[in-house]
């Protein structure tokens, strides 16, 4: 019972985690991408369509990631090549994704109201994981994207703290002119991390449709992209903070399903609200120094 609850929590945390880690990467590099929601939604939709057509969830997930990379590229082109304000680009991408996926969904599947049933990402039992006492059983039967998310947490922490490449990205996020004066192509780095963040957001969307809900409905992301944005801020731009925030969201979300299943007399709207409220409350309450990248959102690419 507890194990299945925790496993559900971890699964529900994964879309937030993947999207937020991507956002963390671009924000540390100085790009404020508020289009995460739209990137996630696009990934969720494309993953659903390809999984349904190919009857293979893995192809769906890969297609979702590719779609996310595409939207990341669109952001990079508009914000970094054309120099449009990043907030405006992000907002436009959110609206475009919401309208575009909605219209395409209706065109492809009609408006019958019958829910799309999608293949599920298979569990990927990693040898040895199940043997870990306590959390082993929770980890053992998850799909591959959950492992990707969890593995990225220490990987990003290592990248930022222990590699020259990470130093460069942080330097670009904090003082792009200084980075440019050392000969680093500020814009090139930003474009590359945007493509990666788009891919992660696309994967996040794929997790949502192919593992968490197993269907696609219009606006399926339901603000999770914005939760990911909030998790980055309140997680103080650290991978561990992001993981903590995502886990809180996932666990409360799992709890909320349990409440509904147990027919506790709570209006379902309140239950649905719960993960968002608790995540924000916890993140706000955690003490610590805010450490936003100094040149976050600045369109001063310089080089």
């Amino acid at each position, binding site marked *: 019972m507890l194990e299945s609850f925790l496993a559900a929590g971890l699964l529900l945390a994964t879309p937030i985690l993947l999207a937020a880690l991507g956002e963390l990467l671009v924000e540390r590099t100085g790009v404020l991408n508020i289009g995460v929601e739209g990137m996630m939604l696009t990934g969720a939709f494309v993953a659903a369509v390809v999984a349904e057509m190919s009857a293979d969830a893995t192809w769906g997930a890969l297609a979702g990631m590719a779609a996310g990379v595409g939207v990341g590229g669109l952001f990079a082109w508009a914000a970094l090549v054309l120099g449009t304000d990043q907030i405006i680009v992000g907002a436009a991408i959110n609206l475009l994704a919401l309208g575009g996926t909605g219209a395409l969904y209706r065109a492809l599947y009609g408006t019958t109201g019958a829910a799309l049933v999608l293949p599920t990402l298979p569990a990927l039992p990693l040898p040895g994981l199940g043997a870990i006492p306590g959390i082993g059983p929770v980890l053992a039967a998850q799909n591959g994207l959950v492992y990707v998310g969890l593995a990225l947490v220490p990987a990003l922490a290592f990248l930022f703290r*222990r*590699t*020259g*490449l990470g*130093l*460069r990205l*942080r*330097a670009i996020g*904090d*003082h792009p*002119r*200084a*980075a440019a*004066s*050392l*000969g680093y192509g500020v814009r090139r780095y930003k474009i590359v991390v945007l493509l990666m963040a788009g891919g992660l957001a696309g994967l996040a969307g794929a997790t949502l449709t192919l593992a968490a809900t197993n269907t696609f409905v219009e606006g399926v992301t339901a603000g999770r992209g914005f939760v990911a944005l909030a998790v980055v801020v309140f997680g103080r731009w650290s991978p561990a903070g992001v993981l903590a925030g995502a886990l809180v969201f996932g666990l409360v979300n799992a709890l909320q399903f349990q409440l509904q299943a147990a027919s506790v007399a709570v209006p379902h709207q309140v239950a649905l609200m719960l993960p968002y409220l608790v995540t924000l409350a916890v993140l706000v309450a955690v003490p610590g120094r805010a*450490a936003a990248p*100094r040149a976050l959102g600045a369109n001063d690419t310089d080089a």
Partner: protein
Amino acid sequence: MSDVVLEVVDVRKRFGDVVALDGVRLECRRGEIHALLGENGAGKSTLMHVVSGLLSADGGGMRLQGAEVRWRSADEARSAGIAMVHQHFMLVPTMTVSENLALARQVLGMVAPASLDADVRRLAAERGIDVGDPRRCVEELSVGEQQRVEILKALVDVPALLILDEPTAVLTPSEVGDLFALLRELASQGTAIIIVTHKLAEVFAIADRVSVLRRGALVASGPASGFDHDSLAREMVGDQAVDTAGTSAVPPGPERLRARGLRWTSADGRVGLDGVDLEVRGGEIVVVAGVEGNGQQELQSLLSGVRTADVGGEVHVDGRLVASAADARDAGLAIVPADRRRDGLVAEMPLWENLLLGREDLRRAAPRGWLVPSEQSRRARPRLEAFSVRPADPDLPAGALSGGNQQRLVLARELGRDGLSVVIATSPTRGLDLVATRAVHARLRDLARRGAAVLVLSTDLDEVEALAGRVAVLYRGRLGSIEGDAVDRIEIGRRMAGLEGAS
């Protein structure tokens, strides 16, 4: 091998209609410190940007150690051995000294903090530059320390030519001494050094050779020993009249500014001001000397009524208590803030709107409650001309002006009014050239002569000397005793550095 490291031949550069460099020649030799002297806008920075590959010239050529070169990027110039220390440091403030140097060394793969620190210590020892604990964050360092990190960064690969753009602008007198000693040591090891400056005294203190630029043209060049103070000043300024009027003593009038027991403790417990008493009489110029960060910002905020309630002490102007910035304005107080871009003007607004940002002026300018832009624009022009703001186009946004002209704009608004009682100016000539500086000083003296109490907060010893009737030194939030007439430059410098006289 020839001793000439860099030879610039006939370099020309235009920006639109403006000729920034008009056939400039320059020669730098091994082991020589070459001062590049000139007023703001003379073309010093443009020339250095061409040399370091940040800009490409329209004509002319360059030879580096005998070989013809033409930079396509700053990177290319750097790899060829030209290093530049920018006036505004190019350090990442949130990172440690080690991390900043790792960035400069283009490290890409894994980095272990311990080995980075060891690398920095070794490099610092080899180059003879003390940067202290490499694990410290750059933003915790003093400006002088940051500059040493910046210089060490430039020396990662020993450059053939090291360029320093106005390196002393932010340093205390003792830090300037350290810097000059360091530069001499580097030169003795064979590096060619160019130091860009508009301070005459520095030429004689450090340079072997000097070149003077005026309006984009090289007007003089030769060994520094071949010039004296006056001849260099003439070359730099040309036939423009230089106002050298000394202080004409005016008998001090009644006390106009009075501050008692000013205290300031910041949220994190740092003491900004620790019981400052001050009075300035009409007709008097008092200079508060001190290195930035010793309480100037706090003192200016309190005296101008921007902050009052949450800190201790009282400020009176003409006997009236100043409880808000509005009180201060009503009492005829003018403020020239230290950071003109942040506190002095709104870069996006046109000049005429910036001139109106004083409250009384708004009341007078718009008696019916609305402003007619064309009329305001017309009325602004003579005031802009009176303060030599160039270009004097009232509809231009303030951000389009050069730094010196932005300062003139702030001065035009703050000082171009009748009925001023008190003038508080923080570093009013920072970034201004010789002519502009003297014009500002003349205006402050003139205001004092007409009965205003003038208080100048300055970090620049030349300014302290040029202006002062009375000098006080602000160090760690305490105001040292106000001296009599005898202003001893060395003694003031020592006190600014907290060396003695902490009475």
